[in-house]
């Protein structure tokens, strides 16, 4: 029995401490999923909060506790889409996101100092820009596979599509990111 399963069982048996354990175990992964999908930390943090509110309200209706991770990722994706719609009605997750001024400033500051952190920040910023230039489906497939380490079957389940579609989205997503990185001057 995994920690998640144990925590979930405790919560479903009426022990609220179980929910706290569940949150502490998953909040990092959900935050990073939302952060990579939305490209904004504050929005990502709000999505984490809203996701766990939704989980708290409806987890008792979850039939199979083993499907919890897939279910949780799906809720997160829906919350990300909802947040994007709320933030700007004319924008969608398919549209590229510009980097925030604060981040660019920090990046330049590090770059001027020539520290190793500058390279890390710059790399992250370039990857973020390249990811944001792809469509929502392609970006989601890449994030689920590359950063959350889901299997191809799980990616298909979370995205609610056939396995062949998930593979296709992943391939075209990677190709899109590759092209964007080349445009940004990264040789890949």
């Amino acid at each position, binding site marked *: 029995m995994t920690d998640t399963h144990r925590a979930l069982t405790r919560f479903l048996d009426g022990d*609220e*401490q179980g*929910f*706290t354990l569940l*949150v*502490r175990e998953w*909040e*990092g992964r959900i*935050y*990073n999923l939302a*952060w*990579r999908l939305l490209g904004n*930390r*504050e929005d*990502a*943090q709000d999505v*984490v*909060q809203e996701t*766990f*509110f939704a989980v*708290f309200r409806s987890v008792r209706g979850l039939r199979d506790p083993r499907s919890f991770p897939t279910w949780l990722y799906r809720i997160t994706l829906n919350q990300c889409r909802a947040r994007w719609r709320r933030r700007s009605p004319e924008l969608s997750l398919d549209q590229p996101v510009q980097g925030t001024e604060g981040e660019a400033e920090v990046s330049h500051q590090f770059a001027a100092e020539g520290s190793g952190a500058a390279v*890390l920040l710059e*790399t*992250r910023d370039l*990857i*973020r820009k390249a990811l944001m230039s792809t469509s929502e489906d392609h970006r989601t497939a*890449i994030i689920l*596979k*590359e*950063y959350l380490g889901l*299997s*191809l*079957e799980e990616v298909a389940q979370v995205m609610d599509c056939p396995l062949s579609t998930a*593979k*296709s989205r*992943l*391939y075209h997503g*990677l*190709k899109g*990111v*590759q092209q964007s*990185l080349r445009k940004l001057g*990264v040789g*890949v």
Partner: protein
Amino acid sequence: MRCDEIRERFVDLLYEERGTPPASPELKAHIDSCPRCRKELDELKGLRGVLRGWEDEQPLRPVWIPEAAQEFVRRRFPFLRVVRYAGIAALVFLAFLAVSNAEFTRTSDGFTFKTHAFAREEPSGEYCTKAEMLKIVKEAIRDSEAYMTESTYRQVNAALDLIDKQMGRELQYVRSRYSQSKTKN
């Protein structure tokens, strides 16, 4: 096998997962024989390495857990429940004082406290006749210079009749006075 047909199947070679069917020998043979496809596959493998440059971060804040937070407060600060009940009791007491028109008086011994919540009007030992009561009503109307319509006056009369019916003792008194005055005349 054409290059554009197999490229979408690169994913099978990129992620050779346990539990999933392995990439077909046909696909592997094509990659071995086609330098263009082999280069593309190598580039995608390199891209995966680049993507790992975006490392995980810690969330900005811990998630706020509503019910669990309440449970934490209940366990950590049990006296808060006592404080809450004491506050409710104090509010009820203050409401009672307000409704009962309570009076506090400072005396040499300290404070005295009196409420009118359970006080009853003591019945008066004196009775009026109907005529006297009408007179009082008329005087009250005149003194206050209030406007009273004819219908209101009739209502007062009807009310007094009702009082007459209900208060037998008063009626007897009226009758006796009436008979006395009659015998005198």
